[in-house]
């Protein structure tokens, strides 16, 4: 695993106050694997970056890693995918992407995240699954 923090002192933003809405589940409470802040506080994910089309059963999440060479980008993406899998009805197709131009290996990350074989294989790995569960734990509270 990583030794030392890649971005030790991230900028922390205020969480958006949101009223109760009638949309699909929003991944607002996932913890960043590297920091005790939630992804929203780090502006890794914003509400605007989530696109939901209920009729066509389609969700697209675009997230922005805090630094360009963030090694956690894949883990964040995996967490997002697992959370969506667990929260959405199975009819949905999910598409999870790194925001264009925010990551060094953008194409590789996108490919890895949307390859269901590789996602399934990753979830078979108990270490990785533990990590994902730990990240998602607050969102089930």
């Amino acid at each position, binding site marked *: 695993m990583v030794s030392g923090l890649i971005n030790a002192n991230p900028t922390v933003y205020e969480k958006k106050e949101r009223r109760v809405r009638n949309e*699909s589940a929003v991944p607002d409470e996932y913890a960043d694997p590297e920091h005790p802040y939630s992804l929203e506080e780090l502006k890794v994910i914003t509400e605007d970056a989530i696109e939901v089309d209920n009729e066509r059963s389609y969700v697209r999440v675009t997230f922005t890693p805090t630094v360009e060479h963030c090694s956690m980008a894949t883990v964040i993406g995996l967490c997002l995918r697992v959370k969506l899998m*667990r*929260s959405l*009805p*199975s009819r949905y197709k999910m598409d999870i992407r790194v925001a264009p131009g925010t990551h060094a290996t953008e194409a590789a990350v996108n490919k890895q995240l949307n390859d269901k074989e590789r996602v399934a294989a990753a979830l078979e790995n108990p270490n990785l699954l533990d990590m994902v569960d730990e990240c998602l734990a607050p969102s089930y509270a």
Partner: protein
Amino acid sequence: MAEPSQLSQYIESFVDSSRSPTQQAASLEAIASLLKNNQLTIETLVREMEGYLTTVDNIIRARGILLLGEVLVRLASKPLDDATIHSLIGFFTDRLADWRALRGALVGCLALMRRKSSGGMVSGSDAKAVAESYLQNLQVQSLGQYERKLSFELMECLLERYPNAVASLGDTLIYGICESVDGEKDPHCLMLTFHIIEVLSRLFPDPSDALAGFAHELFEILGCYFPIHFTHQKDEDMTIKRDDLARALMLAFSSTPLFEPYAIPLLLEKLSSSLPSAKLDSLRYLTDCTMKYGADRTAKHIEAIWSSLKEAIFTSLDSVLLFTPESLEGPDLPKNEFAAEALSLLQKLIVQNTKLFLDLIVGDEDISMIFNTISDYKNYHEIPLERKQRLNAVGRILFTTAKASQVSRNRVFECFFSRLMDILGLSARNSSGQPYFDESILISKRCNHGALYLSIEILSACRDMIASSETILAATSHTEETWKYLLQSFSPALTMGFCSAFICSSEGTHDAATYIGVKGLLILATFPGGYSLISKTVFEKILVTFVSIINEEYSKRLSWKLALKALVEIGSFIERYHESEKEPSYMDIVVEKILSLAFVGDFGIPFPLRLEALSDIGTSGRSYMLKVVQGLEEAIYANLYEVYVCMANKIHCEKGFEEVLLQFAINIWNQIENSTHFNASQTNKKGVLDVMMKAMKLAVANCSEEKQNIIVQKSYNILSSSISFPLEELLLQERFQIAQEVDNNSSRDEWVLSLFAAVTIAVHPQTHIPNTRSIVSLFMRTLLKGNIVAAQALGSMVNKLDLKSTRGQTSSDCTLEEAMDIILNLSLWIFEKNRSSSIQSKMISVHDTGLNDLSNGVGSCTSLQIHAILGLAWIGKGLLMRGHEKVNDITMIFLRCLQSSGRAGISHQEKSISENNYKLDLHSSVMKTAADAFQILIGDCEQSFLFRASAHVVIDTPLIVVLSDTKKIIPMLLDGLSALSNDVVDKDVLYSLLLVLSGILMDKNGQEAVSDSAHTVINCLVDLTRYPHMTLVRETAMQCLIAISGLSHARIYPMRTQVLQAVIKALDDPKRAVRREAVRCRQAWASIASRSLHF
């Protein structure tokens, strides 16, 4: 005898300073108990300890001596012979010189000095030796705090217990004490120090004694502590407060007159200090000191004291007088503590040094200045603020002076009262005996508010003094006193003066004028002693004035209130001092007039005001109360409703007017008897009846049993004579056609019945109710017509009836059993219209008789049934409150009612019943019965109303009862849930039922019970996650499923797939809340076996 080795172990462990404090304490206690139980003599102990007491090692010696001292403290009550005490005290006396081991010596000395005479005391010569050693060896101020405290305690003990022995030491003693207390700072020690000086002064009372030479020195030591400035934090020293110290110091100050030349100048100086606590303390000390030093010594300083005191009063009093009704009567003390102290000191000084002080007051320039300038301002509000304060202060001074003693009162009247009369222009009229001035010219002069205010102060002081000591009046009635002469001659004129203040007020409309007028008149009217001081004409004129204000000036709120208050005060004054001469006038002028207000409709006074006047006057005295109550009764027809409200309120607050209450209740009945029809308007009727019943209940409830018996008898007579059907026939009628009879009673019967019911509710259990059987059946009949009061009365009767028959029973009385039989028979009658067979047998075998028959018997009388059920509920309440087993029968009847009425409308009734019952701490046995019964019923017929009924019972039962019997209830609950889920109308019931289920699931015991039937519960909940009519139901079902996922793995694993499928569907729910719960639920269930979402 104890083992020597054990003893030396104890001693060693105490002396060894390396041991823990608990060990040391334990060994000390052990030694003490050995001595107490005579297993060890002191001699042996001392011998054993010899080495420790005499060693050259300071620490061990100190511990050793301390041990001996502490042991002696614990032996305070054990008798010791004189020789032992002598040698011990000798030892400790010597040890006082050993400053390294001082604590033990002090403790030992104290323990011995404090011994009671019963167990052997230290002799006088030994005590003297202790004192000498103390004075010679102890440098108290160089010791630590605890040792200082001990030394002071020792000195205090010596002074208090051996005064003669130590007094012989004379100068040495006083000098030694001076030396030891000088510069002390610790509060605990200071308390002792002050006390030591106090006791010391008592020891040398003679001015020529040794103390005289040291008085100055002693006071120098004491004086620097005044005023006490306490810097300790609150939490630091909880035991000693500033006030304690201040009091101790005060006692020390006043302990000997020898301090007088030093103390009084110091106190007077501090009186003008800017520190409030110092000022207050100075006043208190001055009071104490002047009283104790005696008149002669005080006289030396009298002028200085007077001028400081005057200044203090002038500056401390509020400048604003209150003109509210509340301040009209009462002590009228200044709220300012400082001013109150100052005035009380003034009064004491006047009593002590009357002549000197009065000369000072009379000759005082400030006071004369006020008198000279008083006529500059006519209206109180024109007076500048500073002048007002002065005026107020002079008023208080005069009040205090006049109140202080006979002589001072005479003097005040002579000097000031006559001057005031001059200022008011009244004396001129008086001197010639008849008025020769034109009234109108005088009015402006008479309205001098300042002068009026001062006269009020003087008069009220005078009145208070007479009132507080009635004997004085008798004793002095023959001696010719100036003040009495003056008062008698001026009172008519003064009355005019106050009245004119009133009249002026109507022009200027100032509070002050009204207040002063009313207060002055009130004071004049409340002079005790019949008409000897205030003539009858004056008194009556005052009353007339007040009554006319009440009658006419109701628009001016303040003056009206003040006048009313004044009248009430006069009334209670007459009552309190038994002024029999004045009572007739008061009765004639005030009570009659006010009473007439109740009747006159077109008077213009708002009705609430009239009632306020009435009830206020009523409270002023017993005799007026009676009169007012009579008046109120007569006024009932004039305005029934308000009068009764007023009445009910009044009864509530008046205790001890039993006669009046009886009279009131009987009179109501008399009126009902006499009137054949009611003219109260239809709209008002219900309200009046309610209030009337309330008043009746209160009146009866506050009476004793004999009075209640009278009322009950009276009311029963009226009831039996007036009800349109004879009571006796009631029982004979087996079956009467209630349905047809509904509402053919006159409204008068209803009133009589309701009032009778009210009486029945209010009486004590011991009160005899005649002809109980007929009454019970009468109430039964009435309640079937929907009269709730009758139902309540019946419940109350059932609650109060005797269990066993008493001696003097007549055939018409009955016990509880019989009453219950009547009740049950009658109520069953409704449901079995066409069955004449014995009802009693049916009662016993509820389950066996044909249930279908019962359910058919209802027919059309639904409203009748509702009434019957309500009635039963009240009866059940009565039974429940006395814990009677018949309540089971009532419950059975409920169940049958429920079963027999399958209409949707029934749910309302059911609710009221269950509420009535279950709120009353219904026993869980009833719940069990209900559950059993419902199971039987449900087994028989599949009707949704039954589920609904059972659901209501379950919902309204406290959860704790449900939990105690979960196994039985769960099947019922589940059946209910699945049956009710078909219909939209039942959604609320369904939801409440689901909440009960979730309550069970949250409980530990409940979970155990559920796990047996987990699959049925889960099936049911899975169905409910699709319930279309209510989001809350789906959400709660989901939460229940989450809770179930915590049950034992083996039970729920087989259901996993089914649940997950249902939950996945719920992920698509239209409502966000449900989806959210679904996600949680899915997570909970998915992680049971693996975290995979696939199954």
